[in-house]
């Protein structure tokens, strides 16, 4: 027996505390080695967020459920190919985006695409300050925000797929312009204009809720003629 006792002190500096990314990688490694619990933990960790992204893109709750499951099945199949060069979450949501978009495109029969280019006609009514004036900017109005949030889903559902997708990725995943360009395979300028259109359409869809009447476009204007509709983008 040793004449002294070795005492191990569990001392960790703040920098040593594992991040979510480190933890994800550890779970991925466990899953790759056949540990079902490791993969289960990853699913539990991300299932709601993946579902939320899918719901935002595909609109239908049941379809979003199936899409979210497909995402995890694909992730499981692709574990061997995951090199850890990006965060697991980034890889996961990249797959989720593609699966959800593919799903929408399969479901879609015909749907006109909107242009991403910003024209002067798109700025009609910009000065109305649609929701800012109606709701105010006070973040403490949480009840109102909650009510509004409930309407957001319906409003989001009125947007074309590409506008829903870019808004969802921007807001849920918090992707930057550069990341959105990379994820969607489009130019940064297109990202910016597509986001602009998406937001404008959300504003328009929410007008009814806010009780603001949209200023009618002048007769014969681009807006009335719908020149922003049906054009080939990019």
């Amino acid at each position: 027996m040793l004449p002294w006792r070795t005492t191990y002190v569990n001392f960790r500096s703040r920098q040593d505390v594992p991040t979510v990314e480190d933890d994800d990688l550890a779970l991925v490694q466990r899953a790759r080695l056949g540990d079902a619990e490791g993969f289960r933990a990853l699913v539990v960790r991300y299932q709601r967020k993946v579902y939320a992204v899918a719901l935002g893109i595909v609109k239908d709750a049941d379809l979003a459920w199936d899409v979210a499951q497909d995402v995890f099945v694909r992730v499981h199949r692709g574990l061997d190919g995951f090199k850890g060069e990006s965060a697991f979450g980034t890889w996961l949501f990249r797959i989720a985006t593609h699966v959800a978009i593919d799903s929408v495109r399969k479901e879609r029969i015909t749907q006109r695409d909107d242009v991403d280019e910003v024209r002067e006609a798109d700025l009609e009514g910009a000065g109305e300050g649609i929701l800012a004036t109606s709701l105010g900017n006070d973040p403490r109005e949480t009840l109102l925000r909650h009510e509004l949030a409930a309407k957001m889903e319906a409003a989001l559902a009125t947007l074309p797929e590409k506008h829903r997708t870019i808004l969802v990725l921007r807001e849920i995943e918090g992707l930057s312009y550069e990341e959105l360009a990379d994820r969607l395979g489009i130019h940064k300028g297109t990202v910016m204009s597509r986001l602009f259109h998406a937001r404008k359409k959300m504003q328009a869809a929410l007008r009814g809720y806010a009780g603001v009447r949209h200023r009618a476009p002048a007769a014969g204007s681009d807006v009335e003629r719908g020149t922003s509709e049906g054009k080939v983008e990019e």
Partner: protein
Amino acid sequence: MKPCVRIAPMIGSRPGELPAEDARALAAHLETCADCRALAASFEVTDGLVAEALLARANARDFAPFVDEVMARVGHRSPRAAARTDRRSLLDALRERWRIAVPALAAAVVLAAVGTFMYGGEHVVAEPEQRLASLEVELSGEGSIVLQTSDGPVVLLAPDDDTGS
């Protein structure tokens, strides 16, 4: 073209996302254009609400069966698949370090060839008996091993035997 057309897509950008020149142009434009200022305020009000709405829907849904359904679909990852992963990891590691692995492998082959030439052909003079005699192994003490080599004994001390007792 109204400057708004160029500036409007920049509205809603986050700090640091725009090149400095564009950020300055946006700020300057917002100071002078009431329409774009109002638009920016509108975007700000709804910013984050999409995420809020979707995550609220996700949180309201019962996810208890979700993970079980996924696990049922993926099945249990077989040990064979896991072994394949390990093998692939080794191959991947070699592939990633080929600049080191290839020269090392080449050097090993050359050394093996030289060794074979030097000791495997006519240069080998030692008879099998002589080679056996040059190395005798005996156990000594509590686990120590003595190797009798042609250059003298070599004692491999067991961990408990290093005090010489």
